[in-house]
């Protein structure tokens, strides 16, 4: 929003030198972590950090497209809770009929994706057809999804049947060739996102719409459809994230996924995507997500003066990471 625009000579934000800014911040954090604790670079810790980044990561990749095309989605955290709630209730309900087994898990996954799609579609249609600001639409659905899950849970927690949970657990905890599933799926989503942004019409149109939607419209871009698609894609990715999240915790409640939206948006912006749209960088988002996870991890590695100050240190690092980025670009 502020942007360098006010200094015409400084030239506009360009993905040139500055592109490496967040990466640099990430590397510094890794060095810091390794310095603070010997186990920081152990396979276990690396797996932990990457796997837990996966949920926000997938959501943030979707968010990158929404923001790039000039939108915003505040509802993703509540949406994740809602999807998780519906998914678990559905699986519990199907259990007597289907029995504990892979088909039940698959049914749950399909339901999660379907609910995600429907939720994304709702946001998207309200934004494109009804023409309401994305901020308002998703602020509204944020409240709605969160209430619905609280109501479904009767104020408490919705839990997956224990036997089903045992079967489902490996989807979070095990993996392929020693790489945990969430990491694999996240990596796939990130790569697909990066490719989609740079090498497909969809990505190109997102940037064009965010940059100037009138121009895009004049150039035969179906602006409404692309906008709608960004929200639907995000909904699906929230669904996918939920599929990976449920085996980890096996439950959903009114407090599931609180503030995920803020974290996802922050990751996108830290990664160098412009909040006002027009330019998106998926790999930057991935770096942003990792920076945010690492900050938490590093705070746990070191013993601070007071745990009350965690938030302050987090805040300082976020700002510093972005200063680094600007610093490079100013050079």
């Amino acid at each position: 929003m502020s942007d360098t625009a006010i200094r015409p000579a400084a030239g506009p934000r360009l993905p040139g030198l500055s592109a490496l800014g967040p990466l640099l911040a990430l590397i510094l954090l890794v060095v810091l972590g390794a310095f603070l604790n010997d186990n920081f670079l152990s396979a276990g810790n690396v797996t932990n950090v990457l796997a837990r980044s996966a949920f926000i990561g997938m959501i943030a990749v979707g968010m990158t497209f929404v923001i790039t095309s000039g939108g915003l989605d505040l509802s993703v955290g509540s949406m994740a809770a809602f999807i998780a709630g519906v998914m678990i209730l559905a699986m519990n309900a199907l259990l007597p009929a289907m029995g504990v087994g892979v088909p039940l898990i698959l049914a749950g996954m399909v339901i999660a994706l379907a609910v995600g799609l429907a939720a994304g579609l709702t946001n998207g249609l309200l934004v494109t057809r009804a023409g309401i600001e994305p901020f308002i639409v998703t602020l509204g659905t944020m409240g709605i999804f969160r209430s619905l899950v609280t109501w479904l849970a009767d104020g408490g927690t919705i839990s997956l049947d224990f036997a089903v949970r045992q079967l489902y657990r490996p989807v979070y905890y095990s993996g392929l060739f020693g790489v945990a599933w969430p990491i694999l799926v996240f990596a796939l989503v990130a790569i697909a996102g990066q490719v989609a942004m740079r090498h497909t019409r969809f990505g190109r149109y997102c940037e064009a719409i965010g940059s100037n939607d009138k121009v895009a419209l004049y150039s035969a871009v179906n602006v409404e459809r692309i906008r709608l698609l960004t929200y639907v894609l995000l909904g699906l990715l929230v669904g996918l994230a939920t599929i990976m999240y449920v085996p980890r915790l096996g439950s959903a409640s009114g407090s599931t996924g609180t503030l995920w939206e803020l974290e996802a948006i922050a990751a996108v912006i830290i990664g160098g995507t412009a909040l006002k749209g027009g330019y998106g960088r998926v790999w930057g988002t991935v770096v942003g997500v990792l920076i945010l996870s690492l900050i938490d991890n590093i705070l746990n590695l070191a013993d601070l003066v007071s745990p009350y100050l965690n938030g302050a240190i987090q805040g300082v690092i976020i700002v510093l990471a972005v200063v680094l980025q600007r610093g490079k670009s100013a050079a």
Partner: protein
Amino acid sequence: QAKKAVIGVSIPSATHGFMGGLNWHAQETIKRLKTTYPNLDFVLATAGAVGKQVNDIEDMIATRNIDALVVLPFESEPLTSPVKAVKEAGKWVTVVDRGLAQAGIEDLYVAGDNTAFGRVAGEYFKANLKSGAKIVVLRGIPTTLDNERVDAFKKAIDGSGIEILDAQHGNWNRDKAFSVMQDYLSKHKKIDAVWAADDDMAIGVLEAISQAGRQKEMWVVGGAGMKEIVKRIMDKDPQLPVDVTYPPALISTALEITALRFVSDTPVYGRFIIGSTLITPENAAQFYFPNSPF
């Protein structure tokens, strides 16, 4: 010098009065235990959300080589598997306050009693109000434990003829409780008593009542044992006849007993339920800790 034993402590962050008190007691106890037992080390992590708490526990295992975990689960269900994994890794596990969804995971369980918390309050209402009396309830953040308390409360007043006019969520927050109570007062001509269910909320409720000038009309029961409230009970404030304990200091008990496992030969297993008792003007002095922030 022998290797230090490391105790990981994972608790929710200080987002409302009770948790603030709990955080304070945890830190004070850790400080004390560290000086008393030089061979003990502690790793404290506070979490503002379930996911973060699971992350914290994972980090303690992966990078801090903890030998024991003292955990106050943000929520029971989601923490069950991760804590179970800690147990399976051969660590000592102490669960505080909110039980896990599966029995038998923890070595030691130290908890308050949410059912008793609601029941004791309910019994006081039943004993001190006539049939047909009208009360309002402020609930906490929608959670299982809030449900337990409210259900126990309702069960306790069952059959007394007391009517609950309203039960909205005040989120264990003073400001929210203040506005909810303001609205109750606009809505209901006659209220005989308020179950605020938490001392932070009670403070907001009392302000709203005094603003409306209806102090004479009703009394308020909070919960947890905040020092300001206990003081007022001690001073026989007619508006605050009693309070129900739910001591944030239970984390200290958990930490101390866990520490025993590593400093003596006699580990203590089992369940310690710290009941909720009624603070009355008579016994208030023994619940008054002026130095605690809560």
